[in-house]
């Protein structure tokens, strides 16, 4: 981890005894109390804390919901209703878990968008970024399997459609895709067998995510945090200790975000879901218009935009796997888009494309919706494969400040600006 002088001094006899045997408190102090944090990070840097909060919330509510849930085709639907109506505070726990998933994705999209805008994937943070993409993929798998558990019509047909994605492999090796799909299902169609194994994996994967989050933070603390200028911490005045500066900011942002969370939990618990999911799963009837949860809509639009089954599936998966390669696709000399006058426009085009794809994913695959979905899908891929490599070379970045301190205090380097924080003592 990044080397800095820790101010940890064990005071009590027990802390001294433990420090000589397992210096865990020393490590926590070095990583989360006096860890040097760039003094200029903005509120977008609070999303990591938010995500940790929601991961813990999902695990805590999930563990107690599993005490009342029955993962069988006959009982699953009714056991969720039982949780909502009969179990003490079951309504609250279920709402927190269901809405929490949406909040988790909202926070992760802001987190990823921040990384893309400020070039947080660029050297030396490639491994940090790649671990993040893997966490994102696992989050999607976990959310997808969790959505199957209420065993409503949307649950059932979402599982059918998404697992069938693998049957597209039939067009490469005949029979391979079908075998994989039947292996996933444990039968010739989605059934209670499928539900039970999804429940098992839905319980497992969050703990895998916890482990990867540990690695993510480790990699982060080796390279140090990025910041809006994209410059590294060079002198003591470029940084402040994580506690209380960044921690206070995290707590304030979390409080605001939790207000939004609570608003949905208490007033609109079903708003982000779909009415058809309150009809029990029926393998003989597909709802007239099936859509995934809002956080999967852009990928769903990409899938449907391409009129060939295998290519549609490949496009959908590569739209996320492409993220793994952007540390090398981005050829720019500067990290932060703040200093990239040309790329800035392309970045916002990309954001608009993703939001537009999300809208189009919620619409039926007919008429002009298909055409627009194709246009935005094309830009999604062009952005990474063409714009990133070319604009990085051709554009002239605007002058960078010489240091993080200069970007905050101006060229004089003295703490004179209104609201400028004083440089911390001892640094």
């Amino acid at each position, binding site marked *: 981890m990044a080397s800095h002088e820790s101010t940890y001094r064990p005071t009590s006899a027990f802390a001294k005894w433990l420090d000589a045997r397992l210096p865990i408190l020393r490590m926590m102090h070095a990583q989360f109390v006096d860890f040097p944090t760039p003094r200029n990070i903005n509120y977008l840097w609070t999303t990591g804390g938010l995500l940790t909060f929601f991961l813990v919330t999902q695990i805590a509510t999930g563990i107690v919901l599993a005490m009342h849930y029955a993962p069988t085709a006959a009982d699953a639907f009714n056991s969720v209703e039982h949780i909502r109506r009969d179990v003490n505070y079951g309504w609250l726990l279920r709402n927190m878990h269901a809405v929490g998933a949406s909040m988790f994705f909202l926070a992760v999209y802001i987190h990823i968008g921040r990384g893309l805008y400020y070039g947080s994937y660029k050297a030396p943070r490639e491994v940090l970024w790649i671990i993040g993409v893997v966490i994102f993929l696992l989050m999607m798998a976990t959310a997808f399997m969790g959505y199957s558990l209420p065993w409503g019509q949307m649950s059932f*047909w979402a599982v*059918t*459609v*998404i*697992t*069938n*994605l693998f*049957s*597209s492999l*039939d*067009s490469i090796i005949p029979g391979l895709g079908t075998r994989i799909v*039947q*292996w*996933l*299902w*444990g*039968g*010739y*169609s989605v*059934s209670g*067998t499928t539900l039970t*194994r999804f429940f098992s994996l839905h319980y497992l994967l969050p703990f895998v995510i916890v482990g990867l989050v540990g690695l993510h933070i480790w990699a982060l603390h080796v390279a140090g945090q990025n910041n809006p200028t994209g410059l590294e911490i060079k002198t003591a005045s470029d940084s402040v200790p994580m506690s209380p500066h960044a921690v206070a900011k995290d707590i304030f942002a979390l409080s605001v975000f939790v207000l939004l969370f609570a608003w949905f939990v208490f007033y609109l618990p079903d708003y982000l879901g779909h009415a058809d999911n309150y009809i029990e799963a029926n*393998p*003989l*009837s*597909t709802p*007239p*218009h*099936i859509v995934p949860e809002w956080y999967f809509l852009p990928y769903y639009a990409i*899938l*449907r935009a*391409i*009129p*060939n*089954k*295998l290519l*549609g599936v490949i496009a959908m998966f590569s739209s996320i796997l492409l993220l793994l390669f952007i540390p090398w696709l981005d050829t720019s000399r500067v990290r932060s888009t703040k200093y990239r006058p040309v790329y800035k426009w392309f970045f916002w085009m990309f954001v608009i494309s993703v939001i537009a794809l999300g809208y189009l994913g919620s619409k*039926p*695959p*007919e008429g002009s919706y*298909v055409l627009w979905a194709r246009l935005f899908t094309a830009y999604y891929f062009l952005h990474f494969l063409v714009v990133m490599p070319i604009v990085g070379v051709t554009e002239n970045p605007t002058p960078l400040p010489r240091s993080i301190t200069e970007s905050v205090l101006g060229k004089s380097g003295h703490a004179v600006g209104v609201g400028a924080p004083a440089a911390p003592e001892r640094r």
Partner: protein
Amino acid sequence: MQREADLASHTAEEPNRRDFIVVAAQAFAGVGAALALWPFISQMNPDASTQALASIEVDLSPVREGQAITVSWRGKPVFVRHRTSEEVKTAVDTRLSDLVDPLARNDAKPEKTPATDANRTVKGKENWLVMVGICTHLGCIPKGQSLSDSRGDFGGWFCPCHGSHYDTSGRIRKGPAPRNLEVPPYEFVSDSKIKIG
């Protein structure tokens, strides 16, 4: 000193008995680990009770011309449509060159059979079309079984999930689905009764 240097250069050039034992032991452990993993993977495949092939009999006498019924076979919906003579004629008159998937996809016929209407029905019973009612794109159930449903641009079935259009012979004509709807193995046990499976 000389001997040690000799030994070092010797081991760098030629593998000795110990290297062989190490590699063999590692290979053995690797194969053993892979074999031990197999039950954990294979347990997810369809189990014996699921595999037990069920066959069902369906009475066709109540189904009037123009009507269709859906029955469940191996957990999958099977479409049985009593086609009108115009529907049969449209299906028969369709040229093979207009089809997306040129193969019949009839479990009772060889794999390379062309997708003519005759190859997807039983001779003398062309007005009956029996198919697994699962869209070959991503597994939704296409619309078109009830009279009020949208039947798509080709008068057969329309999958609402991703917009695949099937014709009156259940062949894919437009949209993302790659294959014609599958015809399950079935036979007429009497004039108005079929056995599927």
